[in-house]
């Protein structure tokens, strides 16, 4: 397959996920830098491409997108592939979990204040939330 940008060289990188259009985009190594541009420093954590080259480690999850196209070159070099084919994380119900954690704190405060009746009511709510979180598919 030929590069969808220059049409001259063989396409090496599938950048569909990173290109603005989200249309299937396959480019050659020369055009890669034109299609997806990153920055020298990660805006989230401040880690730099240079530091990655020195340590072989990214600074945070956002570095992967910040360091395009280096990320794709490195991934291809190390893995020989560019697209994940495996399992994906389930959509967790983070709101329920956050609520449970808040309730747990409240229960503790109520116990300290010796308001056992209110603490019991909230504990029952926590049990119900637990069932909901555990049972979620």
């Amino acid at each position: 397959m030929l590069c969808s940008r220059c049409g001259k060289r063989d396409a090496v990188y599938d950048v569909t996920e990173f290109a603005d259009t989200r249309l299937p985009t396959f480019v050659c190594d020369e055009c890669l830098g034109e299609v997806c541009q990153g920055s020298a420093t990660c805006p989230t954590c401040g880690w730099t491409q240079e530091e990655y080259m020195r340590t072989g480690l990214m600074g945070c999850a956002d570095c992967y997108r910040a360091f395009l196209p280096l990320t794709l070159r490195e991934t291809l070099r190390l893995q020989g592939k560019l697209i994940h084919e495996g399992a994906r994380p389930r959509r967790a119900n983070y709101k329920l979990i956050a609520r449970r954690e808040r309730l747990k704190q409240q229960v503790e405060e109520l116990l300290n204040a010796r308001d056992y009746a209110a603490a019991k009511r909230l504990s029952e709510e926590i049990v119900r939330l637990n069932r909901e979180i555990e049972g979620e598919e």
Partner: protein
Amino acid sequence: MELLQTVAVSTRIRLARNFAEYPFPHRLKDKEAVETIIHTVSEALNRADDFKLYRMDAVPMDEAERFMENYLISPALIERRDISAVLINSDENLSIMINEEDHLREQCSCKGYDLSGCYEILAGLDDRLSKSIAFAYDEQLGYLTACPTNLGTGMRASVMLFLPGLIENGLLPAVGEQMERLGFTLRGVNGEGSASLGALCQLSNEVTLGMSENEILHEVNNVVLKIVQLEGEERRNLFLTDGPQVRDRALRAYGVLRNCALLEYEEFMTLLADVKLGVTLGILEADLSQLDDLAVAMRNANLKARIKMPLTELELASCRAKYAESAAEKLIVRKEA
């Protein structure tokens, strides 16, 4: 006795996972973030199973070493003890390292050879964790890890193999290179450089991206079966060319295990390998999996935990010799020629 069972000693699979919202552990400076990560992971398992949380900065060195000898933690976890922790279940077949190279390293291991069994347990654990943790994940690159060598599935499957035939006949380097070309690593365990202690080697996948977990396990299985077949051939060759020598070594090893006063771990492992080869070739009789248990039980920190007393190097070697004597008498039988 099936050949595969005499080669594959144990199976281990790990998954690398990270929190989306915190920098990777090597850049984790915020004490509060460290606390939140450790708290969230252990809360996620809260009412399930019987995991115990160990903060590495509070674990005595002997215990940390025992965890390492049992492959529950890595040396890197100890190096980061100021921010690291581990959750271990009571059967000690599951562990979750926290703030090693990645925020989470979930790990499942079992005796013998059972890739799919290990993965099934681990996938269940990962599923439970993912209910309360937002893992760093990218639609194209999969699970995001501190090092891109673990991207995608974040999965490394390892099988410990007993390869005296390949090692004795000098074929391990060639097989290792072949494995490397196929995207796998085969290296000696616990040995100096390329040497391996007790003729044990570890095979694991290198590529973690672009294949599903099951495809990776399928390929690891293919490669393991291939190595097992090669090992079987080399054991036969060894017995044909050096039968009397192999027999002599097995019997001598059996003799020394039953009759010595001081025994270092390295020597013990060499003797154990000779005995195990003797068993596979029908010179001695023993349950190989019980012998493999000794390979862990005889290590320094495991011995110390058994004795429950501080020991000098010399006392340790003496304890090991006594333990070896009783174990050899109980577990190994000499066959009539």
